[in-house]
Structure formats: structure tokens, C-alpha cells
């Protein structure tokens, strides 16, 4: 066992670090505020500039083939880049969904001339993509969606509504999943498209989240006309297209979240409980030890996955472990950190609340992490069915036409 880079990996890491050093300052761990906020126009402009610079230097689309402007590199190189980039004050990455999910789906299903048109601008950050799958009637049950697509001549007319669309308000294109035939079983009646988010008939309304920020949107379609040439896959074969996209989802998600255990330890050393530092309290020590064991367990599980990847394995559903553990841990640490402040725990004033109210902020944003990108419950189903091999649930919607299914009142 060792934790060292191979000589090739070390050379790539040095190259990446030199490029980053020339572009941004390194992150100071305890400096500056950490807030879960909106992504404004200035931030998007910075993000676009950085993405272009990365692409020109060969650090965007590291695993992509060179013909699409990628580097033709290995998954290990992508991981090394991610590790290094996370150490610098880079702009918020607004391209994760587009480059991680939408464009790979395009590459699998779009026509060559369309790829010539869309792939490079996406990679250089000139155009941002979003994913339009979830609906008010279909979240975890994506295939329960109702947005209608009806063929009229050589175009399709789209009517309906999407929800929870990250970044729709600053996206240029979107990957859209629709119901083209409600008279057949629900998975069989879906068709996928890519659409222009600025076309008439598309209306984006930001969702005011419980955290106060607006990272997600509702998207409404009113007689949106989409040329048949923008269809991905055959009519009725949209579910297969969606699977291609969703397979990439849990790889695309994975940013570093604060407060982490180190933040909690810092807090527990600085506040007092009963006249001594909170970290001296046995009940506090017990919780810190639990989260340390979980954090380290995840770190080394990642090491095991990286070892498998560097030997050419494909990432499996084992990655669901990280999301299940991290999402719950973030919410618990936020809540426990506030408990350490006693009567003042609820104060959100960043001047008064320790560490710029990082714990209070996270309390209000963390519920989304247990839902977005696969709920805790769906992830447990994935582990149970795809890792442990337990049988699927009984499906009451299996052999029934979509328009015969009970819909419920919500």
C-alpha cells in the first residue's frame, strides 16, 4: 500500500498546480465567509472566463477525446485536477451539469454536425447547459413526468412544466425529457430533446428556497416548437437517453461542503460549556469521534475507488455511499454546532455568530443535499438493489398505460 502518485500522475499534478498558481490564490481555510448564496451575473462572467482559460490550457474535459477539444486523459488525471482546483479560490463551477451530464448525452445521441456546433462552446464555457427532467409530478419517479410533446409536421410542440432545474436562469441550452405518448406504459412513452432556453415559449422562474437563495428554478413551456432534428434517440426511447444522463449524475455531483468536522472542532475549542472548552465535554467528544470515523471512512473508501479506477475499473454504485453519508453528516454537524452555542445558537448575524454564521447557514441549506441528485431513500434503494442484489419493489405502474395511472392530488 502507498498513497503516492505514479511519476506520470506526479508530473500531471505539478503541471496542474503551476497553471492554478498562475491564475488564483490558494484557499485560506479559516479566512473569509462561506455562504450558500446565489450565483450572480458577475460570478458567471468570472466562471466563463476561467472555463475558457482552462479549455485553452487542456484542463477542461480532461477525459474527453481530443476531437471534442478534450485532453484524452485518464479518470485519475481528472481526479487529480479536481483535488488541486479545490485548493484555489476559483469561481463557482456552473458547467458541472452541462459538461458532466448533458454533453456526454449529446455525444451519445446527437448528429455529428450538431456536435460540431455545441460541444466546443460548452467546453469553453461560452454556452451553459441545464437538465430538464424533474417535474412537480415526477421527482424520484422521473418517468412519471407529464410535460407533453406532440408531433406537428417536422417539429414538436411542447407544453408543461419542469422544476428543480439548477441554473436554468443562466443556461443557454437544456436537455429535455417529455411524454410523447401517454397511452403506453410510462417508460415507453418518453422522448428526449435538446432545446434553446432563449426560444419563445420557455419561461424560467427562480424558486425562492427555504435557505433564502435561489439556485433552482421552475421552467414553463407554452407551445414551445422544437425541430425534430433536436430529438435525441427515437420517439418513445427517451428513457434510455435519460439513463445515459443519470448514470453521469452521481459523478458530476461532489463539491466540498462546510462546515466540516474541522470547522466543528475549531468551534468546540473556542466556545465554553460549563466553564471549560466544549471539546472537553464527553458528549461533545463522542460526537466528534463518530463524525471523524465517518469522514475518514469516506476518505479511504474514495482511496479504494481511486485505486480501482487507476487500474481501469468503471465507477460503480458504491459511490452512493459518499452521498448518503455526507448529506446527513452536513445537516447533523450544522445542528450540533448550533447546540454548542446554547441560547445564542439561532443567531444568524455573521458579525455575532461564530465563523460567519457558517453553521446556521448550513442548517438551512443542508436539507436540499439529502434530496437533490437522488434522495437518501433512492440512494439506499440503489445500494440495496445494485450492490446487495435485493429484488426490486413491486411496481403497480408496470403494465399500465400512463394515462390510466392514479395521479393523486399532488
Amino acid at each position: 500500500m502507498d498513497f503516492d502518485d505514479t511519476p506520470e500522475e506526479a508530473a500531471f499534478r505539478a503541471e496542474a498546480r503551476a497553471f492554478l498558481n498562475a491564475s488564483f490564490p490558494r484557499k485560506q481555510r479559516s479566512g473569509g465567509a462561506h455562504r450558500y448564496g446565489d450565483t450572480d451575473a458577475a460570478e458567471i462572467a468570472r466562471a466563463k472566463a476561467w472555463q475558457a482559460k482552462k479549455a485553452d490550457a487542456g484542463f477542461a474535459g480532461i477525459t474527453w477525446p481530443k476531437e471534442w477539444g478534450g485532453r484524452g486523459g485518464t479518470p485519475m488525471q481528472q481526479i487529480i485536477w479536481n483535488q488541486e482546483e479545490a485548493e484555489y479560490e476559483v469561481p463557482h463551477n456552473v458547467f458541472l451539469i452541462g459538461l458532466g451530464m448533458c454533453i456526454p448525452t449529446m455525444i451519445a445521441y446527437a448528429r455529428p454536425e450538431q456536435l460540431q456546433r455545441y460541444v466546443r462552446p460548452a467546453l469553453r464555457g461560452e454556452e451553459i447547459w441545464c437538465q430538464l427532467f424533474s417535474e412537480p409530478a415526477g421527482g424520484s419517479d422521473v418517468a412519471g413526468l407529464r410535460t407533453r410533446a406532440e408531433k406537428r409536421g417536422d417539429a414538436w410542440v411542447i407544453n408543461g412544466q419542469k422544476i428543480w432545474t439548477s441554473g436554468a436562469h443562466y443556461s443557454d441550452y437544456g436537455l429535455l425529457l417529455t411524454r410523447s405518448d401517454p397511452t403506453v406504459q410510462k417508460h415507453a412513452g418518453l422522448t428526449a430533446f435538446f432545446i434553446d432556453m432563449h426560444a419563445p415559449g420557455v419561461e424560467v422562474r427562480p424558486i425562492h428556497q427555504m435557505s433564502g437563495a435561489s439556485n433552482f428554478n421552475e421552467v414553463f413551456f407554452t407551445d414551445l416548437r422544437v425541430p425534430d432534428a433536436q430529438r435525441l434517440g427515437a420517439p418513445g426511447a427517451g428513457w434510455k437517453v435519460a439513463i445515459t444522463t443519470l448514470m453521469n449524475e452521481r459523478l458530476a455531483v461532489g463539491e466540498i461542503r462546510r462546515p466540516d468536522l474541522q470547522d466543528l472542532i475549531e468551534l468546540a475549542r473556542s466556545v465554553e460549556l460549563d466553564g471549560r472548552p466544549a471539546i472537553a465535554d464527553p458528549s461533545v467528544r463522542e460526537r466528534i469521534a463518530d463524525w471523524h470515523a465517518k469522514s475518514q471512512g469516506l476518505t479511504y473508501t474514495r482511496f479504494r475507488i481511486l485505486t480501482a479506477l487507476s487500474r481501469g475499473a468503471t465507477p460503480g454504485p458504491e459511490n452512493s455511499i459518499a452521498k448518503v453519508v455526507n448529506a446527513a453528516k452536513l445537516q447533523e454537524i450544522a445542528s450540533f454546532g448550533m447546540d454548542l452555542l446554547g441560547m445564542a445558537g439561532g443567531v444568524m448575524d455573521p458579525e455575532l455568530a461564530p465563523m460567519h454564521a457558517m453553521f446556521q447557514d448550513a442548517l438551512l441549506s443542508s436539507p436540499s443535499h439529502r434530496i437533490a441528485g437522488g434522495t437518501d431513500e433512492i440512494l439506499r434503494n440503489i445500494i440495496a438493489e445494485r450492490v446487495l442484489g435485493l429484488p426490486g419493489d413491486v411496481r403497480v405502474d408496470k403494465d399500465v398505460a400512463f394515462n390510466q395511472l392514479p395521479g393523486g392530488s399532488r
Partner: protein
Amino acid sequence: MNFDFSDDSKLLREQAQRFLREQCTPKVVRHVLEGHAATSPELWRAMAEMGWLGAAIPERYDGAGLGYEALCVLAEEIGRVLAPVPFASTVYLAAEAILAAGSEAQKREYLPKIVRGELIATFALAEGAGEPREAAIRARLSDGRITGSKWPVPDGSIAQLAVVAARDSSGVSLALVDLTSSGVSRRALPMVDPSRDHAKIDFDNAPAVPLGASGQAWDIVRRLLDRAAILTAFEQVGAASASLEMATAYAKERFAFGRPIGSFQAIKHKLADVYVATELARSNAYYAAWALSTDAAELPLAAATARVSATDAFYLAAKENIQVHGGVGFTWDYDCHLFYRRAKLLALSLGSQRYWKDRVVAELETRNAA
């Protein structure tokens, strides 16, 4: 990055798995559990013949010198089948104590016998209720004689030799005591897991030979416990995996309400949680194995972390295995209780979660202060 066991270790794992699947069946475990014997001498002899007892003992003491990575692999497989042998007490504790504190003559006298399976040895630390603490050692050592009471001592009624922690004029010291000598009386203790022998040993002026320097043993004891915690974590991970496999297999074949119970989300989510806990524990144990085999400075924190993680995982896996089985899981005939008993025994054997969680934070504080 190469965070995996070597090909040699993997080969050893396969051999160990094959052997133990055939030779350490639940029937063998139950023979001891049900009181027909205090251990399985056949299994012990075979382990000695295959070189397992000396896996990490240097070749100059007749060991195989395979190193600690190999020992971790064996521990996982031994844990998986709940082997009813004095492996932990003899190999993780007594042999390690002699290696750490013994004179060259003592190493040459005892280690080859341990390797050959001729000497069962143990470590007598606990004196009743309590965590491992220097102040809790009350057994007295003076003029080559020891007096005091130790319980529970793992494999205490079958061991011939004990490393005993006792107090002399300069502090806590270690001594070797021949358990067959006069002045030693012992009785087997009924335990929550009877598949592993434990005893109460009373020393009344029993002859004792110093092991290591007088009065300076507590640091050695703590290091010994750290190292044993890593190896025990592998036993726990092996047994947690076995419990999860058992529960998963049952959930697939047992039908209720016209469908396999494993198709219900209540069962799926429970077993997914067990899987997650077991994989986190396995990863922490791997890291600790790296620390143990390279004698890294990170060993104390890695050991405590692996211990906390593995104890949680095995106990969770064992108790939910019973739950998934329902009523039959509570019967004597199903093997669920074997794992449940062992889970709690191992959770306490080197100190409870309270002790090890405190160790995790204490090590974190040391690291942050540095």
C-alpha cells in the same frame, strides 16, 4: 495511489477463506459455544502448521515474517467465521507484548513455541469493570511474586502463560507468569459469548518474571492495545460482512405478503445502512493496516478510528441480522446469535466505545496542537 492489499496478501486471503470455510463451520463454533470444549485444538494445530500464528513474527524467532498486512488479512477471515481459538490473545497480545518488551532470551524462549502452536498465551489486564487505565491496575508485584485478581482474561483457562500488568514500587510493570505454577488459581467465566474462553485468575504470591523495564509499562500497554485494536477491527469487519451476507441471503429467499421480504424498502434501507457502515469500517481498517505495517506515526489515531468504526459496524450488522430473520433469528438453531454475541464481546474486549472515542479526540487534539 495503491490503496489495496498486495497480491501475496490476496492469495493468502483466498487460501485462508477456503480452509476456514471447510474447517471452521458453525458446527465447530457451536461445539465450543455449547460447552463441549474450551477451544478447538484441531483448528489451532492446523493454523500453526500453516504458519498463521507466526505470520508477523520475524523469521529469527521461527516466524513466517510475512508482516502485519498478512496478519490483518488472516484476522479478517478468522473474524468472518468466528473461529473459537485463542488467536487474538496469543498472537495480537501476548506475542506482541513479548516482541515489544521482552529480552532477546525471552523472545527466543517463547516466540518459537507460540509459532509452533505449543504455547497458548494471553494478556491479563482487566481487574473487573472499567476501561484500560493506568490507575486501575492494583495487582501487586514485588520480589518476583505477584498478588492480585484479573478478570476477565481472554482464553484465561486454556493459556499456559500470561503477560500480566501489575504495580511495583516504581509504577506499572509487565511480568510473565506461568499459569500452571502454584499460587495461580483460575476458573472459567460464563460469558455473553461462550465460544471464546475467558477466566478469572487469582494470583497469590505466584512466581513472576519481569518483562521489560520496571515501572514504564503503561506506554507499552497503550501501544499494545492500539495494535490489537487494528487486528480486532479486521475480525469485526470480517464478521460484519458475514452477518450482512447472511441477512441479505435470507431477505432474498424469505417470502411474506406474496413477495421476498428483501423487496420491501424497510428491509432494503436497513441493509443499505449496514452495508455503508461495513464499508466505512473496512476502509478505516485498511488505513490502519497501512499504519501498522509501516509503523507510521499516524498509528494511534488510525487504530482508534478503525476500532470505533468497526465496533459500530459489527454490532449494527449483527443486531439487524437477527431483526431481518424475525422470529427464527431468535432461536438457538439459527446462527444469528453467534454473531450477535461475538459483536458485543469484541466491542468490549479492549475497552468500550467510550474509551476509544475519547482516544480519537485526544489524538486529534495532539495533532492539532502540533
